[in-house]
């Protein structure tokens, strides 16, 4: 029974983990909390629902939604980070909040506030390992999350653009002096973040077979907590933090009931912030450094 709870927690946590990676990526590099992420997550979920309903095939839906996430995130960059360089430090935060409000209400205008049920083109499957029931879509989601983070880690450590990104994370001004074209690298950071967020949205809506205009808020708040718990700016930390939050959440439901979940999850966040603000794995991009 306990093992099953742990499995459920890890599955839930894998969704938080992907969102946390998107948060921690912009946080680690640009030092700004990108509140448009819940909006893009929600848009991805809603478009997955709408396109599947319109009869698109699943691969086409995934590609289209990831592209949409990339484009949206690129637009967000134009209005947030680009503006920060000229003015106050809180501008990107405020503008990204505006994007969340904008996206949420545009979806409300288009499709109303109802929660939508996804009709899947495949049977929802689960595997049995001994007594444990493991959802196959969730398992695929977790594997995908670890896979893309591994790829991202590799890109950051081995490639030219990865080196540029890390140098900006360390010090944007010095990076500029050393010939890194900050204005060209940062949009790439946003596009990658947008694709991650959209991927999380697609996986979430497929896993739980639902999408709603408000789906971004709850998951994003947990994603932010996961980012802090793992260590801000640390992509592996984000994965760990997501899994920790997922397990804490299922454990809290198991022992204290659904209403007590927030006390434990955000209490944990508060405790980490007070005791070890750099998180479990330490802050800094691509692990270890800074």
């Amino acid at each position, binding site marked *: 029974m306990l093992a099953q709870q742990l499995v459920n927690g890890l599955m839930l946590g894998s969704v938080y983990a992907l969102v946390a990676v998107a948060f921690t990526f912009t946080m680690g590099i640009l030092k700004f909390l990108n509140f448009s992420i819940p909006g893009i997550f929600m848009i991805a979920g809603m478009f997955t629902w709408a396109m599947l309903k319109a009869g698109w095939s699943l691969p086409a839906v995934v590609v289209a939604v990831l592209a949409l996430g990339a484009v949206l995130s690129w637009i967000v960059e134009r209005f947030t980070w680009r503006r920060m360089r000229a003015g106050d430090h809180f501008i990107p935060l*405020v503008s990204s909040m505006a994007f969340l409000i904008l996206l949420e209400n545009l979806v409300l205008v288009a499709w109303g506030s109802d929660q939508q049920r996804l009709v899947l083109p495949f049977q929802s499957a689960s595997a049995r390992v001994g007594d444990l029931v493991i959802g196959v879509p969730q398992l695929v989601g977790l594997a995908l999350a670890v896979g893309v983070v591994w790829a991202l880690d590799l890109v950051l450590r081995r490639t030219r653009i990865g080196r540029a990104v890390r140098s900006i994370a360390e010090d944007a001004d010095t990076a500029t002096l050393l010939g890194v074209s900050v204005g060209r690298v940062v949009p790439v950071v946003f596009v990658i973040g947008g694709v991650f967020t959209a991927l999380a949205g697609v996986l979430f809506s497929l896993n739980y077979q639902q999408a709603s205009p408000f789906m971004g808020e709850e998951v994003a*708040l947990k994603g932010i907590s996961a980012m802090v718990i793992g260590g*801000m700016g640390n992509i592996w930390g984000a994965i760990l933090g997501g899994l920790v939050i997922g397990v804490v959440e299922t454990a809290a439901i198991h022992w204290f009931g659904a209403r007590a979940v927030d006390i434990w999850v955000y209490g944990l966040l508060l405790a980490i912030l007070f005791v070890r603000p750099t998180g479990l794995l330490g802050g800094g991009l691509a692990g270890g450094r800074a």
Partner: protein
Amino acid sequence: MSGYLEGVLVLLAINVILAYAAFLPIVAGQLNLGIAGFMATGAYISAYLTNAHGWLPLPAALAATVLTAALGLVVAFPILRTRGIYLALATFAFGQVVVATILNLNVVGGASGYPVAAHLGFPVIAAIAVVVFAAIYWLFHTRFGLSVTAVSDDELVADQMGLSVRWLQTAAFTIGSAIAGLAGALQAHHFSYIEAQNFNVLLSIYVVLYVLLGGTQTIYGPLLGAAVFTLLPEVLRGSAQWRYVIFACLILALMTWRPQGVVTRSLLRRLFDWRRPAPEAAT
């Protein structure tokens, strides 16, 4: 006065009070994303005192303000150890914990909400909003106001000049929480019903947006911000969603072309004080 107009004006008064709750910490360099938590604290304390102990609404609201201030002071110490984005996240987490705790307190109705019997009408709430504004006006014409403004302009220099930045930040945070508690109490007593779920992080975010858009350089910014964003949706007819779409576009436009907010020191100087080159302590 029609019921509709009164409803809008009450909302305006409460939002103005809330705006100052967010304004004080922001001026001291802290983004408090837990305003809703403090608001919920005030609302529930005041409601409980009137419902369960038969207090009159005004003394209850006052007691709620004092108790919320005490809570603010207690959490200010650990929270102000963090800085920048960590501080914003700590206040956010704190707000979530407060609301979740209330949700589990069955003595105040838990998740099913809490009806409030004692009623406060528009005149009282409007008067309290005026008093709050007057208090802020007075506060920012004292040494405290000047010091806080110095901290917001440049924390390092303020520290070098011998100001106790830490003390100022604790004070600003505590007063801000107290004001948020007051606003919560007033809301509880006017709308006769409170639900913990409504004091969510989006509410905190909206309040912060009012303030940043109005401008944080002077005490008139939050007033204008709260007024515009309470009244604008009423003026813009049509569905609530379109109002928010326009609201969001307005924020983006403002942040792009006027990032310091609408009301700035130089604007006030140009409007009211153009003959004197040196600015008075316009704060």
